[in-house]
């Protein structure tokens, strides 16, 4: 068993530098790596490119990095919940690349799996296809998309063991599994870190081989964006 545990978020983020590209898991505020994000804010790393489906809200998630203007460029699919984001984007302070959500997921998965490029129909005939190769398969046009390249992936799992094996919970799974192993270094924070053998090997969502560092997060706010009840 190869032990992937580190003792703290400080140790987990060793090696982050200005100008790097980060992947961050989560959909909306669900399943975001809260502890790693806080540490990124604290270290004040600058000019970073973030690949993340959303950009948080004004006072939580990636919104915290946006507020401090640490982000040079965002690669996302939906950013509608963040006023500061919109302001920085429309004023030109923030570079933004919007791409289809499924393409975002698959470009992560491609990086994880050593697939340099693939074809998808998503975005054909739209701005998204500009400058990309178009090719027909079965009479239907598709565009070629490339695997992402990133320096760090910050992932949040529910449970993990010391070997880096991960289990996610509910819809907090989202982009987290496909970002594991999709960057040079994958940093995972978990709600509960257990000993090897405590997780059923049949129900591990992501094997430890895709993870370089794992630590137990200190606290989780798990903020809900739209608390809707019946």
């Amino acid at each position: 068993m190869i032990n992937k545990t580190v003792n703290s978020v400080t140790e987990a983020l060793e090696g982050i530098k200005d100008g790097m590209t980060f992947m961050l898991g989560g959909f909306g505020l669900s399943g975001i790596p809260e502890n790693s994000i806080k540490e990124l804010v604290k270290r004040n790393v600058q000019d970073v490119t973030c690949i993340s489906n959303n950009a948080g809200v004004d006072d939580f998630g990636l919104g915290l990095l946006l507020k401090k203007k640490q982000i040079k460029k965002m690669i996302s699919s939906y950013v509608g919940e963040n006023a500061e984001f919109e302001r920085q984007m429309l004023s030109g302070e923030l570079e933004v690349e919007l791409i289809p959500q499924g393409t975002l997921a698959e470009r992560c998965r491609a990086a994880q799996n050593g697939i340099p490029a693939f074809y998808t129909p998503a975005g054909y005939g739209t701005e998204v296809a500009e400058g990309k190769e178009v090719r027909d398969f079965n009479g239907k046009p598709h565009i070629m998309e490339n695997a992402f390249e990133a320096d760090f992936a910050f992932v949040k799992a529910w449970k993990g063991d010391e070997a880096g094996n991960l289990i996610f919970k509910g819809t907090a799974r989202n982009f987290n599994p496909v970002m594991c192993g999709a960057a040079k270094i994958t940093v995972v924070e978990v709600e509960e870190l257990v000993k090897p053998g405590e997780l059923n090997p049949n129900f591990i969502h992501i094997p430890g081989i895709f993870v370089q560092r794992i630590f137990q997060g200190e606290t989780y706010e798990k903020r809900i964006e739209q608390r809707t009840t019946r």
Partner: protein
Amino acid sequence: MLDKNGIAKRIAQEVQDGFYVNLGIGIPTLVANYVRDDIELEFQSENGILGMGPFPTEDEVDADLINAGKQTITALPGASFFDSSMSFGMIRGQHVDLTILGAMEVAQNGNIANWKIPGKMVKGMGGAMDLVGSAKNIIVAMMHTNKAGDSKLLKACSLPLTGVECVTKIVTNMAVLDIVDKKFRLLERAPGVSVEDIQKATEGDLIIEGDIPEMSI
């Protein structure tokens, strides 16, 4: 003239037995409330659940269980959770039978625009481009005209596109239409709405064949 719930009610009639259905944010979400309960169907939400149930009670609320609109939800028996790659595999692989989504504009060739107003509003496409790029069956739910009274059913979209020649049906507060030979074909009128009202509110070419029945909802 229908309200939002009326549009949802009418669209609910399009949902068939055995359908996996993806509902967009806004009016489409309301469709779930009006589907007949004598058919089998499952709702997919692209953030990673199949078998989505109703909103939770206060006790059931779980931050780790939301839909694509970031609303708290529940999971029905037989539900499953999965990652974003598999979720869009379901969509791209045409395993989802019906996609219902909103739009800012629809063109008579089936083009749709719903993610960006240059210089003003840029929320992003989310999963919409994947959905319209692959779905066999796409119903647009929207108001017939915008707040300024301008038609949203156009000869050509003026806003950046979400997808090309993909919309199969449109249900608005005034009418049900489908797309035939790159034109809108009027199928049904909303209660109290005349064919002339619809013609006036539709910028695109409109096919009107025979008597246009009123919707029964």
